């Protein structure tokens, strides 16, 4: 049923990656993503691949999650590969009708696909090892300098937190309402498109009513606890940059230097 869906990709764990400060993780991820575009040599990509594989291994995320995070974008990756394969001029391997498959194309196709795969895997590593709450918290912190120019950083983060918090609740609620209407003879599995569309109304109306009721109750409960926006608000779990984060930053800088050397030597 609906309850089988698991929302969010967070995988609880205690690895070094899990324990890193989410702000540092976001910033480092950002630099790595830029790095992947900037250091576009074969040597650099071998280093990046090893790095990604290693991080996955040490974070304790099951390897099948790697393929799972790639699957939604599989077609884009294949499409990109095909375009480069067929459209790069160079030495022919084969000819299919009016298309030339070239050695250069093959190399470039693999290269670009690998770039996409690395981008996806590194980004999903962030969501795999960081709970949604920490993630929004970190975003709020990183965006807070923009408060001065009128970006409502706290409110945005709060909205994200609440939305994430209520996704499972709403799924559960939908499940319950569907069961209740099934008990009254609703049938969600047979009938043509029109009939099925009609069956959605008895689910959507109670769902909306309950969502509004919950929103109302939540607002009331927040108000009762003197919530008044982000001004002067402190946190129970304060984000702290620890030694792990310094080591990670240091290692990243070293890696950067190494990659720069590789690029300089055209490897």
């Amino acid at each position: 049923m609906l309850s089988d869906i698991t929302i969010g990709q967070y995988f609880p764990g205690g690895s070094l990656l899990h324990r890193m400060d989410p702000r540092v993780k976001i910033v480092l991820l950002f630099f790595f993503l830029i790095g992947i575009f900037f250091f576009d040599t074969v040597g650099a990509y071998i280093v990046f691949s090893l790095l990604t594989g290693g991080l996955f291994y040490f974070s304790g995320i099951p390897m099948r999650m790697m393929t799972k995070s790639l699957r939604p974008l599989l077609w884009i990756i294949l499409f990109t590969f095909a375009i480069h394969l067929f459209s790069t001029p160079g030495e022919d391997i084969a000819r299919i009708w009016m298309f030339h498959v070239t050695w250069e194309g093959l190399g470039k196709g693999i290269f670009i696909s690998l770039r996409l795969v690395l981008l996806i895997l590194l980004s999903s590593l962030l969501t795999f090892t960081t709970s949604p709450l920490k993630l929004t918290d970190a975003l709020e912190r990183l965006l807070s300098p923009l408060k001065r120019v009128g970006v409502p950083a706290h409110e945005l983060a709060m909205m994200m937190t609440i939305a994430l918090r209520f996704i499972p609740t709403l799924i559960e609620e939908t499940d319950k309402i569907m069961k209740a209407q099934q008990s009254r003879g609703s049938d969600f599995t047979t009938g043509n498109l029109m009939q099925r569309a009609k069956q959605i109304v008895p689910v959507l109306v109670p769902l909306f009513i309950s969502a509004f009721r919950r929103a109302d109750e939540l607002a009331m409960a927040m108000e009762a606890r003197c919530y008044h926006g982000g001004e002067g608000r402190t946190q129970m779990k304060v984000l702290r940059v620890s030694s792990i984060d310094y080591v990670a930053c240091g290692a990243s800088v070293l890696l950067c230097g190494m990659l720069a050397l590789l690029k300089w030597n055209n490897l």
Partner: protein
Amino acid sequence: MSIEIKNVTYTYMPKTPFERTALKDVDLVIEEGSFTAIAGHTGSGKSTLVQHLNGLLEPTSGQVLVDGVDLNGKGSKSEKLAARDARRKVGMVFQYAEHQLFEETIFADIAFAPRNLGLGEEDVEARVKEAMSLVGLGYEEFKDKSPFQLSGGQMRRVAIAGILAMQPKYLVLDEPTAGLDAAGKNKLIQEILQLHEKKHITMIFVSHNMDDIACLADKVLFMNQGRVLLYDTPARAFQAKDTLQEAGLCPPQIMSFLEDLRDAGIPVDTNALTVEEGIANIMKAVKGKNG
């Protein structure tokens, strides 16, 4: 004729890290015409069990038969139709049933089920009228009102009427009185008893209130961690103190009270399920002492 639950095991979200077996080898028969109460700790699997009775959940292993028909019959077309009809014999009132209301008028909401059954408008109207009178809502007064203008107790009545309009032979009530005030609760309990006695609907009643269970039920089922702990008449069930304790339940207040009296030295018979029986026992004890 009966509901037979044969060796039912149910696992939520199998093959995921969140896997949880909520029912283990549940095996029992609910006789037609009985009033069965189901009690147990929070999370003991009561709601999971009753959702099997009209096919909302399909057993991971085992079978549920209503009047001899397997609710999850999948074979031939006739078997599937029979299964569907068998499911419709069992009405299901969920906890906080008023959350399922969605129509603009009370009439339309109660008519939802009979219309889904494919009845003609005349039959639908007759059924709505009957269902409303069964739960004590005046037809003319309420039929054109919006269900959302009502009080919580009235909304719950509308929801129950929406199930009664299917004319179920068996009625499952999952904590029907949760969240109602004392007066509304008593009234609803009386109406449920009436339905059982006058319309001969077989009741399956999930409740945390041992006093209600002692008054109403003629069979009690105690659940603990997904297993059946005890399935017996209330008189015998409430005698089994150890079992009660294991399930994290207390005997009805009147029984505890009589036991306290006995421990204080008054030789009173502690076997009483209702307040009336309790009073009678006390009167007997007092008279015996004086005379």
